């Protein structure tokens, strides 16, 4: 059976933060564009649009990705988690709480990417060293904080989450 | 008499004097006094009745910006400095 070649507006069915979502998008539109402009999920930010700043981080099928480097049509059938899905109705995620308490943000524009990336880290490695945190987050640029308080916040959240687990 | 500190590049007009004493109750009056004593100097500081864009006046350590009506004490020290911005 010959494969369909899609162009123009394509109908995409996907799951975002646990909910089934349909959207129409051109193949050239990135997942980041669709999230922000079609679906109003503006928590992911565009900082570089080429995979070098991490501000657009989302988790796709359990894997941390830069949504600027994913085509909208590649989201078909995928399960996507964004910053908007990190807090639960019961309250903030421990990482979010820790970022607040540790003053781990200044302008805040990189913060969603950091939190999404750090959450992916802690799911894979609940007890990271400082070096492992810095390594994992090296793809997330922050220009305000000098990273110090961010790294501390992630380690702090990891400790809280281990205590609660 | 207020003491006015003359920026180096403008000391030609004051015959090399780094400081001059000028009578005046406000910055504006001192500038007028400067022009009267040293013709041409006032014009380098003031344009169309306003301190030249980019200059600030300091009166006794206070940055009064371009507010020429700022009142002076008899012993006031007056500086004219380029205004600064910042990041």
């Amino acid at each position, binding site marked *: *059976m010959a*494969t369909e070649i899609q162009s123009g507006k394509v109908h995409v069915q996907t799951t975002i933060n646990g909910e089934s979502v349909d959207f129409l998008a051109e193949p050239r539109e990135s997942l980041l564009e669709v999230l922000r402009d079609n679906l109003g999920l503006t928590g992911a930010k565009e900082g570089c*649009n080429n995979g070098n700043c991490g501000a657009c981080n989302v988790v796709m099928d359990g894997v941390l990705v830069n949504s600027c480097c*994913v085509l909208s049509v590649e989201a078909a059938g995928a399960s996507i988690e964004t910053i908007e899905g990190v807090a639960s109705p019961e309250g903030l995620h421990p990482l979010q709480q820790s970022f607040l308490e540790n003053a781990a943000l200044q302008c805040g524009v990189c913060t969603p990417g950091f939190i999404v990336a750090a959450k*992916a880290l802690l799911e894979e490695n609940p007890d990271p060293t400082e070096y492992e945190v810095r390594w994992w987050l090296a*793809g997330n640029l922050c220009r305000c904080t000098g990273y110090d308080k961010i790294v501390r916040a992630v380690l702090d959240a990891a400790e809280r989450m281990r205590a609660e687990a | 008499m207020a003491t006015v500190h003359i920026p180096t590049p403008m000391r030609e007009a004051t015959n090399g004097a780094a400081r001059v004493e000028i009578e005046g109750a406000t910055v504006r009056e001192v500038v007028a006094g400067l022009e009267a004593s040293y013709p041409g100097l006032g014009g380098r500081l003031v344009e169309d009745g306003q301190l030249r864009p980019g200059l600030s006046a300091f009166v006794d350590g206070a940055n009064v910006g371009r507010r020429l009506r700022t009142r002076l004490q008899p012993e006031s020290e007056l500086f004219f400095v380029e205004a600064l911005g910042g990041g």
Partner: protein
Amino acid sequence: MRAIQYAAPSTVEDAVAILAEHGSDARMLAGGTDLIVQVREDARDTGVFVDAKKIPELMDLSVNADGSTTLGAAVPCHELYNNAQFAASYPAVVDAARIIGSTGIQGRASVGGNLCNSGPAGDTIPPLIVHSAVCNIAGPDGKRTVAVEDFCTAPGRNVLADGELLVSLTLPKPPAGSGSHYLRFIPRNEMDIAVVGAGASLVLDGESITAARISLGAVAPTPLFVQAAGDALIGLTADEDSFAVAADIARDAASPIDDMRGTIAHRKQLSYVLTQRALRGARAHAQGGSPTNGH
């Protein structure tokens, strides 16, 4: 970004058919971390994106009966370093997989994609070369294989003809007593393109070197297989003096350019230093240790 078309075939045959139909206007889309960005930034004009990730052969990672490993062209980097068996067998490849882009990039970017992008600084290419990996290519005229060191032909170019795609790589089973290491020099500690990259593999019999391969990135129009440097080590003791001999040959083989990422003088120096360090790392692996991927 220009308007594009997208197809997600589920078989190699379908992919070949689409590629053949659209010729040079079509490209395989693996992780997309190079291709999407290049088209967006007008560095490449591709109209048809053929998604590799629905084709089982391109997502395959398995050990064959002869002990070799098949690495599907679109397997993302993060699957390699999370695969203990692969990591133990092909440490240099995993060294590269761990330092390409960021964690987020490694979630998508693939070794096959890195190879097909054919950049002179592609981090996975020297490791594939030192592991004697072979490209399995499919096309309208059937299948063929090409050694990785013969795959790239110029910056951004390779032996793939219109209609052809890289299906997988075959990595021979590493002999007993072997070890490998890849490292690169970058001004930062992450998120950079190699100023110079160096991969080395060694097979040791006690302290004696029985086989060695050395490859450099970013010092020539294509990743460089410095066969003479490896050959010179055969029969020598795996020590600093021997490594210096190989490093000298590697430095002489390097013919880098001045560009925004590095100078000729610095790259020549780095070719020497990194060859030594790659060999030390390979020795550590061969002797059962693990090298520091120092930066």
